[in-house]
């Protein structure tokens, strides 16, 4: 196979979509970084640096054959658990939660990378399961145990959002394979029964967020304020928006965390329904493209990995936008390629790299 053939097999459409989302994301971040006095914070520049690093990470993620990655799955799992354990042991505390560990000058957030590594691990465990789907209880024990252990470690940090995401991604992969109806019902029953117990384990601030979501008036100063201000920002954009850099809500600092979790409301305020719907359609296209890659994968592992990675993107977009629009609780999930943040950017690029990897090797020729 010649080098040129590999080049042709790269999914340029997918990359173009990625580049478009990055461009729009940076534009909105640029606007969100303007203060009321016109000063611009350094976020956009730093974000560009992260994206450059992301391109490198994407290159690496494409070039290693994903089947080799599957062979590493047990080590990836042990490494993930080790890092999550290290966070609990020596992690740095910010905002009441330990999420970071410092490696020299670098601060890494293992729970971000755990999203990807757990998608790999679950895909591996399901792919090598000898029983045929739909699954009964026994084939699910190992993957479920592996994920719950990692999710438990993340929950202890405590990072409820990521823990739920880990379980959700594994659930999507398992459901994609197929599960017997009885097992499904039993799981639903157990979840319903477990909710009150889980409530007891939640941290105070997490309970507050959920209660505030159900009734924003409860906390007119904190999360309720965020939701109301975010809704005003989004709604005031109307059909066509106020125009680039013209969003009063954002620039007068009404909007909290406007360059991270609430960046979508800046977009909606300045570009209106037209702009926000356009971006949502881009995201939708991106996610469907991921599903298309899953459908073309040459083996079970590749398909399950693609499903898992795509569901990570889907959960992030849906939960973040749902939160900004006041449909879901404020859980602190970033919007891929829009929200400022190195870990989120790198994770997204690695996911895209792995998806391209699966697509590239769909015929088993490289």
């Amino acid at each position, binding site marked *: 196979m010649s080098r040129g053939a590999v080049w042709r097999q790269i999914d340029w459409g997918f990359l173009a979509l990625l580049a478009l989302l990055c461009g729009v994301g940076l534009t909105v971040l640029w606007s969100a970084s303007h203060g009321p006095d016109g000063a611009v914070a350094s976020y956009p520049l730093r974000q560009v640096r992260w994206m450059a690093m992301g391109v490198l990470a994407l290159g690496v993620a494409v070039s290693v054959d994903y089947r080799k990655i599957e062979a590493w799955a047990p080590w990836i799992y042990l490494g993930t658990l080790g890092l999550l354990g290290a966070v609990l042991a020596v992690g740095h505390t910010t905002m009441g939660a330990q999420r970071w560990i410092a490696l020299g000058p670098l601060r890494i957030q293992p729970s971000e990378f755990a999203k990807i590594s757990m998608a790999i691990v679950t895909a591996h465990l399901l792919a090598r399961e000898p029983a045929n789907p739909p699954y009964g209880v026994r084939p699910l024990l190992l993957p479920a145990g592996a994920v719950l252990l990692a999710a438990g470690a993340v929950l202890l940090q405590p990072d409820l959002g990521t823990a739920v995401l880990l379980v959700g991604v594994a659930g999507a992969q398992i459901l994609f394979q197929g599960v017997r109806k009885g097992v499904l019902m039993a799981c639903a029953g157990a979840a319903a029964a477990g909710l009150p117990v889980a409530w007891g384990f939640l941290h105070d601030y997490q309970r507050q967020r959920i209660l505030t979501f159900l009734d924003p008036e409860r906390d007119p100063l904190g999360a309720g304020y965020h939701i109301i201000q975010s809704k005003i920002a989004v*709604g005031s954009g109307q059909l066509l928006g106020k125009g680039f850099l013209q969003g009063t809500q954002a620039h007068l600092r009404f909007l909290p965390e406007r360059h991270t979790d609430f960046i979508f409301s800046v977009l909606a305020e300045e570009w209106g329904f037209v702009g926000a719907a356009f971006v949502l359609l881009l995201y*939708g296209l991106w996610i469907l493209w991921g599903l298309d890659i899953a459908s073309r994968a040459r083996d079970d592992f590749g398909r399950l990995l693609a499903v898992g990675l795509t569901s990570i993107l889907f959960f992030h977009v849906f939960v973040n936008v749902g939160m900004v629009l006041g449909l879901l609780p404020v859980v602190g999930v970033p919007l891929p390629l829009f929200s400022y943040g190195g870990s989120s950017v790198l994770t997204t690029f690695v996911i895209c790299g792995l998806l391209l990897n699966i697509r590239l090797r769909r015929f088993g020729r490289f």
Partner: protein
Amino acid sequence: MLRPRFSRSRLRPRLVVCVAIVAGAFAVLLGRLAYLQVWQGARYRYLSENNRIRVERIPAPRGMMFDRNGEILADVRAAFEALVVPSEVPVEGLDPWLDRVSEILGMPSADIRSALEGSRPARWEPRFLSRITRAQMARLEAHRLELPGMLVRARPVRHYPQGPLFGAVLGYVGEVSARELGSDAFAEYAAGDVIGRAGVERTWEATLRGTPGGQQVEVDVRGRELRVLAERPAKAGRNLILSLERRLQQAAREALGDRVGAVAVVDVRTGDVLALVTSPSLDPNELARGVSAQRWQEIVSDPLHPLQNRAVAGQYPPGSTFKVAVALAGLAEGVITPRTRVYCSGAYRFAGRDYRCWKKAGHGWVDLERALIESCDVYFYQLGLDLGVDQIARWASELGFGKETGVDLPGERPGLLPTRAWKRRSRGKPWYAGETLSVAIGQGYVLTTPLQMAAAMAAVAHPQGVRFRPRLVTRIEDPAGRVLHALPPEEVGRLPFSLAQLSRVRKALRQVVAGAHGTARRADVEGLPVAGKTGTAQVVKLPSERNLPIEQIPWEHRDHAWFTGYAPADDPRISFAVLVEHGGHGGSAAAPVAARVVEAYRDLLREGLAARGEQR
């Protein structure tokens, strides 16, 4: 390699479900977006352009504090501050406006001008100008129309009606600092919140603090409030009923006068701290209002440390008051009986050195009772050697020496009971027998605090030798005065001495005050028999000063004076410890202070106030 389990035809239905889920989810988001932006868009546009929503924190009134009879020790008053909304200040006619405001506030107009500058926070947000008095507020209100942009806001501030009397015990409050706000421990606090900085205010912060509320206020573009959109009322903090008795505290404070020292008075039967005086002390009102950096510097560099609560944080050698502990140790250990006699010639020769008794002429033959009454040092040198330092420490620790009493105040110090192991550990040197002689008369390494001393004496006085944890808070009430918790007295131990041993010592302590040769005859109070023990804690002196009369020794080289005891001697109710720094002899400097306290207690008993306080 494992072969794929699905053919493309079996895969298709799954993909259809996935696409349907994604499409459904995005349809929900798009629908919501359309609802907010197109359907409700005009309303939100109106809200964002014509109106602003501002969040204001409503401070929670801090819980009040009362003495045991319900007298107010700490409450909350309104303080006023002047604010300015820059966007509302007239651009034309600024100078007369500035002159007027500057004249009313007594603030240079340059300072006001600089407060108006800048765009952060937004120009329609009120900015703080200064604290104002009631009269200034009235003038601002009267000239409201001529002074657009000026706002007056009331804020609850801590107030201590008794002023400096309870200063160090109650502590004071201050605003949370920017640095504290950055740390997790202060997650519940916001800028402008106050927090207990010392004393009961600090220990009981969580109870007193309450929960601040807040409101979302709709304001117009000029920063004027249009209406309250949402409100969460503040919840007042809970009230504390303290064990303190205002009149005892006052008597102790007045008796101490401007001397440096401390007085602790404890209820023998409950551990209630009835009075806790430290001198000098500051007016907590001054600290709660906030002091200038210069004044603060003055306070912290004061060599007398007015912020320190000497009653719990001041560590002093107990002097002869420690002989009570050594006497009980000797009886319990069996190295002496009440009849054991020692000959005092005025000095004790040990290891080639003379250890002197305070009475140069000597006491002659003394038994335990006389040794305590006349505070004979030679008797205790002999007893100390017979016991050894480790045995002294062991028995003294049963009285509570050498560790914190656990009183609900911050910054309590443990004192020190030296042992051989302690000296090896902390000094890296062996114990010398001569040092045991010093310890036996309460000098050398031994350290105690006035409250620890009063608590030890309370245990000696208690009929069954029961020890209680000294405490300041007896009850927690909600803002309406309903009792939430009545805290029971907390027994922490019982003295391991027999009632016969205790009554021997008690009898001697009574004679210290009542006997013809007692060292504290000045502590005698008409109508209420007092028992106690004097002490003089030696302070390092120059050799040339050793034999001078006290008036000729520089103040800071004079000995500390102690008197500790209890009353009534036949049915003990209160115990006390008085320490006068550099006061000289316990009998002359400290005992009269204790007498004034006991007199005040006697008067309370006669009025039935003390009894009523206990019932409440």
